[in-house]
């Protein structure tokens, strides 16, 4: 087969498999944060920025996978 096909397949697989873990992690973080806000609504101002920061850190593995797949495609 054409090498370009494998290149595109590799890029798709890289981001597709790589996104699974951080998607689960981010969902877990959002769920826990909402649970905490539901339990103590006054603390939502403190919880929301922390939630975004931890989400951004959990997202980073997916971003690594995305960088790899972009390098495969355009590098």
């Amino acid at each position: 087969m054409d090498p370009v096909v494998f290149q595109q397949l590799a890029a798709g697989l890289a981001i597709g498999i790589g996104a699974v873990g951080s998607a689960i992690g981010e969902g877990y973080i959002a769920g826990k944060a909402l649970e905490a806000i539901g339990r103590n609504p006054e603390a939502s101002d403190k919880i929301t920025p922390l939630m975004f920061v931890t989400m951004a850190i959990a997202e980073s593995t997916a971003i690594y996978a995305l960088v790899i797949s972009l390098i495969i495609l355009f590098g």
Partner: protein
Amino acid sequence: MDISLAPNILTNIYGFPITNTFVWTIFLSLVLVGFFGVMRLFWSVVPGRAQSVVELLIGGGFSFVESVIGDYEKAKKAFPLVMTFFIFILLANLFTFMPGQGAISIKTEGGSVSLFRAVMSDYGMVFALTMITVITVQVIAIIVNGPLGYLGKFINFKSPLSFILGVMDIIVEFAKILSLSFRLFGNIFAGEVLGGVMLFLMPFVVPTAFLFLGVLSAVIQAFVFSVLTLVFISQASEKIN
């Protein structure tokens, strides 16, 4: 669509390539220096409207830094670096949403090239910022623990386990470079690519949602980069026992 990982070269001056992200960086630096220089000139005891905003930003940033690092003297030393990172990255990310800047392009030998490009989508720029963080952290750790004390964290022969942990610590120090730089670069570059793809697929309405997502990630990534710098500095400023 023409998507390239490397920034586009506008012109060469004595063999030194001038890229579009370089032009953008110089422009943003001038904006920042000019703005704060003018603020400094008109600084008064009774703050005006603009001065109140700046004071709120700087004061809030300082109290946040102090709450993370837990010590007033340390916070005074770490604050300028962390706040500069935050303001510079935030401005660089937000200026990419300025309407019309993507439309200005100039003709070069390699075809027409856009004059501006998101600064943080140039891996060289992000890598330089990351190296500033990493080198600062190493220098602080060496000053706090002394050269031999710091070396003892990585190489010790007390037991096989502590030797392996020391080797792992060396890997962790190098992994910091990759994780810190890829996070910022990947988010901004992926945001640009996503915006391009969405404009290509559906030119109306739909890209707006992704623009909103882009603004959110622009602010959060600036915050995350500077907070991680702060956390690394506060870790390094504590003595190894």
